């Protein structure tokens, strides 16, 4: 009896906190809510730190962070790095908060935890009457772009990298150390050093996105045990793809350790984002689409300055598909 009463009370309190009006920060306007992606969709949000200039906005952003996040930020070195780290936390909190259509969720009240493998996820910690949305997210950032990918029901991993990124090590030495033999072969065959460098960075983002989607840490899927490559797909005619070539290329992953299982379930997209970055997205395919080839990733991309401006940019010049089967919405 007592436990039932206290459960009800705590649920009511949770609801109150959850539906707490915006008194906490009257200066910030409400976030524009967004519907959750459907099961077959991926949402991708990004912020360009250079577009966020207002010191007062940045200071309001800082107020959204948890004490631990603030402490981490305090210890970071380098202003640009600190700014993008702040925006990464703000982006993930505000993005998740947007999808709560039942009641206004304060992005500041969101709690995060890590799986036993270290992958971040939301800690909903609510009463058992309320079912949290089966939302998956993943973030990645450089000092000039901060991104967050969102899916429903299936894991997602993303990675972004500046197109101009230079390695300190020699390209092939790096590839030999970290990539699979097939990937090294592919890179070695490229004679133009600049193209070689670009292909290495693209491959890196794809491999990172995959490991982050699998979510078991770098050591569970060492980079040299799996190969990612593009495979030309003959189109059946129904699906409309956005790639520039008449034959679409699908990105596939093959594992030398586990040839059958892991690898048929993952879908990739590689984009040229905002003219400045490569962005790789990896999501798990739903069971029903398991072995089926040729189903595109349905993708919606927004550029945002949280609380200030949201702009849907999928289908514009800001999002140029490089490879993978993609349908932009």
């Amino acid at each position: 009896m007592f436990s039932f009463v206290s459960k009800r009370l705590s649920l009511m309190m949770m609801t109150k906190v959850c539906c707490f009006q915006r008194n906490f920060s009257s200066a910030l306007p409400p976030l524009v809510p967004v519907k959750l992606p459907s099961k077959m969709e991926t949402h991708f949000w990004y912020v360009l730190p250079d577009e966020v200039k207002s010191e007062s906005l940045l200071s309001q952003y800082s107020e959204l962070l948890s004490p631990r996040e603030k402490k981490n930020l305090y210890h970071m070195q380098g202003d640009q790095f600190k700014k993008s780290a702040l925006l990464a936390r703000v982006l993930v909190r505000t993005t998740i908060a947007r999808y709560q259509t039942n009641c206004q969720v304060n992005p500041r009240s969101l709690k995060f935890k890590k799986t036993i493998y270290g992958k971040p996820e939301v800690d909903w910690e609510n009463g058992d009457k309320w079912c949290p949305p089966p939302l998956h997210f993943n973030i990645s950032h450089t000092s000039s772009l901060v991104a967050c990918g969102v899916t429903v029901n299936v894991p997602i991993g993303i990675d972004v990298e500046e197109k101009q990124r230079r390695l300190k090590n020699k390209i092939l030495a790096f590839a030999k150390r970290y990539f699979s033999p097939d990937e090294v072969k592919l890179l070695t065959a490229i004679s133009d050093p600049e193209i070689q460098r670009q292909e290495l960075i693209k491959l890196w983002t794809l491999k990172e996105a995959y490991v982050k989607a699998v979510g078991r840490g770098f050591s569970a899927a060492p980079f040299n045990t799996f190969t990612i490559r593009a495979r030309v797909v003959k189109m059946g005619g129904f699906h409309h793809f956005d790639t520039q070539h008449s034959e679409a290329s699908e990105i596939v992953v093959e594992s030398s350790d586990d040839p059958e299982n892991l690898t048929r379930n993952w879908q990739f997209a590689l984009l040229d984002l905002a003219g400045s970055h490569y962005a790789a997205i990896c999501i798990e395919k739903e069971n029903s689409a398991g072995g089926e080839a040729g189903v595109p990733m349905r993708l919606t991309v927004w550029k945002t300055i949280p609380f200030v401006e949201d702009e849907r940019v999928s289908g514009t010049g800001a999002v140029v598909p490089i490879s993978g089967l993609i349908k932009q919405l």
Partner: protein
Amino acid sequence: MFEQGRISSVNSVSLSINGKSFPSLRMRSAPRFRVSCAAKPETVDKVCQIVKKQLALPADTTVTGESKFAALGADSLDTVEIVMGLEEEFGISVEEESAQTISTVQDAADLIEKLIETKSA
């Protein structure tokens, strides 16, 4: 390794005031707290140098044993490049599992010395 991790965080909490760390104080207290041997200061210094170079940090940036790679602005690509640089510098080979446990410069230096020891054993 777990104890080392705990001890180094105790050190950095007590000695990191307003973000400043006090390496000399830390070394003095080291014999009392450390169960196993910490890396030599020369090793830590070399790691700091490699890290500073990889991350292209401004000359006045403080990098010490306590410095966390994440806080210095190292992303995953930087981290693997740093590991590669360390492997070349010290003639060792770092497994992915071990690389994942490194979060500070000190962790890296300790691992390096352990690997050198194992190699020469």
